[in-house]
């Protein structure tokens, strides 16, 4: 036990005396949370649009006012002729054009129907889609307001409620994803590099020729990074709830419990990598390449898993962060308890145990 504590103490010295490690350990999560929270979101704000209004009546003015008031759009220019639209798309960074025909208001009130045209720059199809939806919903909104007091023979009112995330904030999606990404990357990277460093420096040689149980080398390596990762997790949670306004609806304890299992899985992966490499660079490369891509692709926070072909969905099942992501979303956003996530927890624990067993078995008690 004394040996073990000495080892853990030594490991903490390594971390705190190396500014690069510290930066990686605590800088990366903060940078990622802020980046994903603010810069990299799929909400589209302040898109520049042009309006070509042939009607110039009450209805069009009201609609344009509504559009201008929306945070999604910024009316850049009011055009007099629709032939200018093409030029506007070509010269400026215009994303959308709205054309109102003449007599818009009259058509609307006398024939109960009016037409307007939305033209979008579809060179980026996702943006074009999102923007036309935003515009359509603004117009729909106007329509509802103006027909409030009128009698319309038949009407289906769809009442849409966006559960758990009524404002459709991207942060809700990204924070759990970034948590999974950061915890996995940092843990895998740190453990693999720190073990390989002992090999590279030759200290592993001395440690092996000692009565110290090699298994303890591994466990005592994992302990500091386990605790540092929990601190990391706390930083992420504080940042995301204060700056990003991310709610924590479920039990904090459950959140930490699930995260601990993910951290264990990551530590085991790190050990596995360190067993098969001999240089810190190689360990770093494998950890980054081997973890970053699958985590980004198959966690589900950048690309919805449901859209992927069956084969890739099956692959995604092997990625620990996928399960963690489901758990975190359920606990943080939906506020669910253990009863509804026990299956995911079990899968994640199974992964952790399996990986730990393999890496323990593969650990070499000799040099070659």
């Amino acid at each position, binding site marked *: 036990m004394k*040996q073990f504590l000495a080892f853990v103490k*030594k490991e903490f010295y*390594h971390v705190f005396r190396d500014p690069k490690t510290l930066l990686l350990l605590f800088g990366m999560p903060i940078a990622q949370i802020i980046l994903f929270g603010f810069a990299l979101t799929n909400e589209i704000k302040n898109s520049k649009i042009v309006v070509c209004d042939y009607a110039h009546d009450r209805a069009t003015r009201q609609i344009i006012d509504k559009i201008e008031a929306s945070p999604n759009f910024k009316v850049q220019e009011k055009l007099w002729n629709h032939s200018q639209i093409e030029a506007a798309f070509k010269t400026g960074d215009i994303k959308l054009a709205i054309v109102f025909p003449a007599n818009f208001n009259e058509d609307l009130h006398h024939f109960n129907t009016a037409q307007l045209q939305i033209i979008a720059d579809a060179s980026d199809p996702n943006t074009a889609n999102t923007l036309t939806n935003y515009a359509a919903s603004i117009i729909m909104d106007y329509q509802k307001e103006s027909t409030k007091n009128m009698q319309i023979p038949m009407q289906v009112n769809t009442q849409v409620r966006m559960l758990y995330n009524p404002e459709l904030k991207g942060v809700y999606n990204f924070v759990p994803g970034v948590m999974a990404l950061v915890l996995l990357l940092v843990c895998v990277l740190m453990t693999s590099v720190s073990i390989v460093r002992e090999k590279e420096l*030759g*200290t592993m*040689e*001395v440690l092996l020729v000692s*009565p*110290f149980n090699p298994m303890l080398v591994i466990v005592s390596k994992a302990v500091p990074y386990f605790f540092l990762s929990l601190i990391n997790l706390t930083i992420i949670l504080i940042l995301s709830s204060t700056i990003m306004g991310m709610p924590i609806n479920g039990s904090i304890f459950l959140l930490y419990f699930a995260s601990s299992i993910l951290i264990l899985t990551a530590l085991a992966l790190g050990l596995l990598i360190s067993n098969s490499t001999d240089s810190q660079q190689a360990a770093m490369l494998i950890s980054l390449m081997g973890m970053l891509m699958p985590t980004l692709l198959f966690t589900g926070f950048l690309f919805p898993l449901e859209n992927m072909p069956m084969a890739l969905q099956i692959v995604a099942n092997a990625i620990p962060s996928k399960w963690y992501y489901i758990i975190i979303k359920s606990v943080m956003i939906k506020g669910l308890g253990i009863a509804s996530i026990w299956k995911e927890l079990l899968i994640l624990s199974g992964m952790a145990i399996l990986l730990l067993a393999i890496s323990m078995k593969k650990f070499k008690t*000799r040099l070659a």
Partner: protein
Amino acid sequence: MADVILSKVLKTYNNPEVVAVNEVSFSVDHGELFGLIGPDGAGKTSLFRILTTLLVPEGGSATVNGFDVVKDYKQIRERVGYMPGKFSLYQDLTVKENLEFFATVFNTSIEANYDLIEDIYVQIEPFKNRRAGNLSGGMKQKLALCCALIHRPKVLFLDEPTTGVDTVSRKEFWHMLKRLKLQGITILVSTPYMDEAMLCERIALIQNGRILSINTPENIIADYPGQLYAIRSDKMSKLLKDLRAIENVSSCHAFGDFHHIKLHENHQVAQLNLVQMLNHLGHTDLELQPTSPTIEDCFIHLMH
């Protein structure tokens, strides 16, 4: 009683053509200071790693302190001290932290075995709060030796402890080994420096994984056949080439300010001819005198 016994130990690396240790057998007595002398790549480190249980030999057997290096590796790891060739302490830990860490890892404390390391430790104590990475080469070696000794090992393995260390520190280091020997610790040390061989009680000359000779340094020198000459002139590199071309000279190699040469039989006559011959070839200030062989001469002789 022998503390280290090797019998036909064989170790090859991946490629079967590289035989690192080729059926090596020798034994080291209890309390002996035994030197393994050979150039880089001779197989010294592989041999050390086998004895410290870091590598498994492919053939033969070896015991350390009575324990088999393959079966009883755990017992051996408790009983030996090992200092690898590369400086292997934590560079970002201070001198004191390193020592404390290794003491704890070996289930002991600095205080318990302080008498053993005191002589060495007092020399690095002024720097005890300095990080190991900032120590000079000699200081690093002393710290590594302290760490290898902290648990009072029965057998001490030192793999090229003086490589890359200045002459003064090297002398000091060997002095320390002599004192450790008095404490009854069996010491196995390897070195590529032939001059250090004289400081060991017994040495094994090793080359290409094979033992060339095992004996006391004095006996190895006494076994040197024939008479050795030292020669020099004003053109040393030309001299080496010219001598090697002469039929009567059986071997010739550079040795400090002189070249050491060995002649075929009937050397008295050959000596006279040699000076004349070399004068003819344009050498002046020739100096030729009989000399006594060193370990290096013996090594070169045995190599051929």
